[in-house]
Structures are given as structure tokens and as C-alpha cells.
């Protein structure tokens, strides 16, 4: 088990500043997910950690070793690629044993490690097959196995589940998490899927435009997003945003009829705010709340997502757990849970107060 420490990392591709002064500390045995929209630099960061890409300044330490200038093979890392990158001309056993062969380990040891990895990943019956004879999920497991056999100091995953269908993705998500918890290997996992990150990671690193926006545990990110970008990125359905103004009496006016008193007055320094409301914090009410008209009803089974448009023209989404049959065009009232509201500065998007 080893910690990974990244300091002041920068990367340019021509004129584009892809990574801007990245600082990140990953604890021993921790599972950290790098999340962000495409083009945010998360894969580039992972490739630099892997040694597949060079950086323009900054340092990477794995344990006590400074690996910034070392080639991939000397970094003692294993990586699982989005495409799995299995060697098509080798059998599953040869794929699993390749890294040990490169390390010139004795045959007996290679064999026993292959058998051990195959047992963990249920690949025992597939050892003589070639990658093209395997299903997507099996290939994914071989790619995992290849990472496991070498017992590396760090696991790197580059969107490993995005080529799988939805059902298999959920199964493999659990398997990867279980293997990681069992081996307790420090893991850095890149994904664009926030659900994947939320369910698997100990901590999540949110990236945008080459910068780290926030690093926190999944629930902290959800409860206390640092700005509107994080607030909108984490959570599905997305957080609702409503422009609001001070009501002149120390409160915030969400609409003409709805004002609230936040429990801190930090925000009042700013002139205009954005109020963030998670869909589950917006309740259907008979008498009180924002007047709105249902525009879309999305049943998902246990819950129903209700999209509505307020009198002020704001589009909102709420989650309905009950069995109320709403139809498009119905008039409803939506009452936010005041203590769960998030307040952001409208100009900068930064979080203003503890809601």
C-alpha cells in the first residue's frame, strides 16, 4: 500500500493548457475517482500518472519515490484501459502472465499467480481462450486480472466500464469495488459517470477545464458542493437552480410569494444569488410553495421525476415517491425544504453559505 502525491502538475498540448497546477494527495489504500465532463483533463492526468504522457512541470510521487521522470515500467503501477487493451494473439493465461514474464519471474510463480487471479475473477475455465472468444464482461475481467497478478502499488482505471451494457456495468462496478477492498491497493479511477464515482470511490475529484474544482467524499460533494458546476454535475436528476434576490428584510425572495430566511447572513454581501434545490428537497404541497405547471412526467419505477415550469419561467424537477398520478398540464405547488437549500453567488457561481 502506497500513497500517491501530485504537486503542481501542468500539461500543455500546443497552445491548450490541458492541466493547470494539479495538486492531489491519494492516501494509502484509498479509492479515488476522477470525474468531469469530457475534455476536462481527467484521462490526461491518469496517463501522466501512468507515465504514458509527460508533464510540463510538477512532480508525482508514489510512496517515497519521485516517479515524475521514470518510464511506465519502473513506476510499479497497473492500468486497466477503456478498450481493455488485451493482447489479441495471446491466451487469457498468457495475457495475465505477461507482466510477470517481463519481470523474468520463475515459471512456477507465474503459473500460481495466474491461477490465483483467475480464481478471484472466475476466469478458471477461460484460461486457454483468446480475447476474441470472450464476451465484453469476460474481457473486462481479464483486464482486471492483468492488473491484479502483478500486485502493483497503484491501480489506474481509465473508464473501464464504458464499453459494457448498463446491466453488466452495475455488476462489474461491484466486482471492481470488492477486489479493491480485498487487495486494499491504492486506486485512481477515471470516469465520466457520476453514479459510478459516487458508488465506488472513497473520495471524488471533480475536474473542469483542466482544474480540480473540489475533492471530497461522495456525500460531502452532494451535500456541500463548492460551486454551481459541482452542484449541477453531482446528482441525478440534476439540482434545480433558481435566480433569487434579497427581499430587503434580511431574507431571500425565491418568487413574489416565497421568501425564506437563511441561517447565516454571509450571502447578503452579494447582490444576486442562485438558489440550488435538489429534486428530492422540492416537495409537492397542497397550499404553499412555488406555483408551477407540469411539463413532463418520467416514471422510473420506484420514483417518478416530475418536470415543471414555475410562474417565473424556471424549469424545476422534483422526485415523487408516492403514487400520485400527475399529468402534463396539471397545476402543482412546489415547496422547498429551506434548510436544505444551497446558495451560490450568481456571478462567480461559488457557494455562499451553509444551508
Amino acid at each position, binding site marked *: 500500500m502506497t500513497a500517491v502525491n501530485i504537486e503542481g502538475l501542468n500539461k500543455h498540448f500546443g497552445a491548450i493548457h490541458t492541466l493547470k497546477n494539479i495538486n492531489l494527495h491519494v492516501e494509502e489504500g484509498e479509492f479515488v475517482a476522477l470525474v468531469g465532463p469530457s475534455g476536462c483533463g481527467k484521462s490526461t492526468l491518469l496517463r501522466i500518472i*501512468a*507515465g504514458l504522457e509527460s508533464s510540463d512541470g510538477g512532480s508525482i510521487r508514489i510512496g517515497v519515490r519521485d516517479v515524475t521522470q521514470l518510464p511506465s*515500467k519502473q513506476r510499479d503501477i497497473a492500468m486497466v484501459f477503456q478498450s481493455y*487493451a488485451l*493482447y489479441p494473439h495471446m491466451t487469457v493465461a498468457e495475457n495475465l502472465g*505477461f507482466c510477470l514474464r*517481463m519481470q523474468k519471474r520463475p515459471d512456477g510463480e507465474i503459473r500460481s499467480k495466474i491461477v490465483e487471479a483467475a480464481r478471484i475473477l472466475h476466469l478458471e475455465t477461460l484460461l486457454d481462450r483468446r480475447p476474441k472468444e470472450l464476451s465484453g464482461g469476460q474481457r473486462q475481467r481479464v483486464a482486471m486480472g492483468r492488473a491484479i497478478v*502483478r500486485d502493483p502499488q497503484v491501480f489506474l482505471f481509465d473508464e473501464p466500464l464504458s464499453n459494457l451494457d448498463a446491466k453488466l456495468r452495475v455488476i462489474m462496478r461491484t466486482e471492481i469495488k470488492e477486489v479493491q477492498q480485498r487487495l486494499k491497493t491504492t486506486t485512481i479511477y477515471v470516469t465520466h459517470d457520476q453514479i459510478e464515482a459516487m458508488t465506488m470511490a472513497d473520495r471524488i475529484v471533480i475536474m473542469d477545464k483542466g482544474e480540480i474544482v473540489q475533492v471530497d467524499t461522495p456525500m460531502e460533494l452532494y451535500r456541500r458542493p463548492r460551486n454551481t458546476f459541482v452542484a449541477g454535475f453531482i446528482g441525478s436528476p440534476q439540482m434545480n437552480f433558481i435566480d433569487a434576490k434579497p427581499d430587503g428584510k434580511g431574507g431571500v425572495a425565491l418568487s413574489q410569494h416565497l421568501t425564506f430566511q437563511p441561517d447565516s447572513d454571509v450571502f447578503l454581501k452579494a447582490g444576486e444569488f442562485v438558489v440550488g434545490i435538489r429534486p428530492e428537497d422540492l416537495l409537492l404541497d397542497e397550499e404553499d410553495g412555488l406555483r408551477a405547471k407540469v411539463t413532463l412526467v418520467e416514471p422510473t419505477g420506484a420514483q417518478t421525476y416530475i418536470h415543471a415550469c414555475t410562474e417565473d419561467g424556471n424549469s424545476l424537477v422534483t422526485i415523487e415517491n408516492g403514487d400520485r398520478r400527475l399529468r402534463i398540464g396539471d397545476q402543482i405547488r412546489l415547496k422547498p425544504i429551506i434548510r436544505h437549500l444551497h446558495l451560490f453567488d450568481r456571478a462567480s457561481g461559488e457557494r455562499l453559505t451553509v444551508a
Partner: protein
Amino acid sequence: MEKRGTSSSTVLNFIAGWAAVILLIFPIIWMFLTSFKTEIDALSPEASLIFQPTLDNYRTVLARSNYLTFALNSVYTSVAATLLALLVGFPAAYSMAFLPTAKTRQTLLWILSTKMMPPVGVLVPIYILYRDMGLIDSHLGLILLFMFANLPIVVWMLYSFFRDIPRDILEAARIDGAGLWEEFRYVLIPLSGPALASTALLSIILCWNEAFWSINLTTTKAATLAAFIATYSAPQGLFWAKLSAAAVLAIAPVLVMGWIGQRHLVRGLTFGAVK
């Protein structure tokens, strides 16, 4: 379900296809037949398919010149030039396919453009260079020329093939602890088996058929089969039947090789064409 009958266009395609094949193969068949005729039959204005076949031409050709020496020269030069071209072309194609720079595209086009230059344009400088370096009528001289002549094709074919190999696989090997040499030996070369085979085959065939340089730069010691055929076009006149026999002997090995490897050849020439 639509039934696929023999439509008139299928018939037309069939006829057109066969016509093209016959047109292309006719000279070879003609040459083959002529090689079994007497010189008089061969010159007769009434070209005839009915004649008394004779092996005299083959006997004369084999007796008059040392076929085996020419044939071995062809083998040496084409195989050695091909190996050399692969040795140089493989790393070149690797770096252009996997580590491209902004100028890679232009470099590739420039490499190909050298094939468009007529060889006769550089005959004099090359001749003088070879004379001064003592490379006239030497195996080494021909091997070097063949190698340089085929290098653009070798680089292009391997490059097109490498472009189809996902980069991730090589990166995975690097992370698995492979250095450049291991990456070549355990991953890239096994994966490029078909590409290497078809590239080598094409290069050997092109070297084997090369006539301009072997006729102009060799006399006896390093002369290949192309030069061997040319000796039958003497100042005293053309000996059609003997020339044909010599030509059959010269092209037979490469024809057999092409026949056996035709599947690889077609695949090699269409690398990267269809994804």
C-alpha cells in the same frame, strides 16, 4: 425474401470479368506456348495453336547460360534487399504510426513521391557512384538499390497496418514492463505477422521483377534473371522461342510464389483501406 436470380447484369459482369482475365493473361500464355515452338514456328506469321511441341529451347537456354547462377542471384538480391528494407522500414513505420509529429504526413508523402521519379533520371549519377565505389556487378550494389527502391512501399504498407493496431495495446505492454525491444518482440511483431508476410512477399516480387538496374549495373557476376532474359535479345536478332523459354524460366518461381501467397498479397495491398 428477395430471390437472387441470374440477372442480365450478372451475366454481363461475368463476361466482362473473363474478358479482362483473358486479355491480361494472354501474353503469358502466348509466351508459354512459344517457348515450346521451334524458332521457325515462333516467327511464322500464321500464329497457330497447333504445333509440334519441343523442349529444344529449354535445352539450349540451360546449356548456353548458367540459369542457376542467375536464379540464385535473383534469390540473394531480392531476399536480402527485402530483409534490409523490413529492418529499416519497420522502425520507421512504427515511429510514424505510433509517435506521429506534425510533419509525419508530409514525410510519408515525400517518401512515396520518390517512387514517382523515373529511375533513368538518376542512372548516370548512380552509375558513376557505383563505379567509383566498386559496386558495379556486385550483389551488395543491387541489394542496396533494391532496398532503397522498395523502402517507400515497405514503409507505407507497414504504416497502414500499424495504424489499425490500437495504441492501447502497446501502452499496456509498456505498463506491463516491456521495453521497446520486448514491445516489438512480444507484441508488435506477432501482431504484424500477416502484414510482414505480405509486405515481404510484395517486396520480393518487385525485386525479382526489377530489370532496369540489374540490366544496367550488372554483367555476369551479380546478374539476375531479368538480365538473363535480356541476353536473348542479341544484336543478331531476336530469338523468340528461346527468349520465351528463358522468360518462362525466369518468371516461374515468382509466379508460383505469387499464386501461393495471393491471399496475403490482396490483404496486404488493402491494409487500412477498409475499416
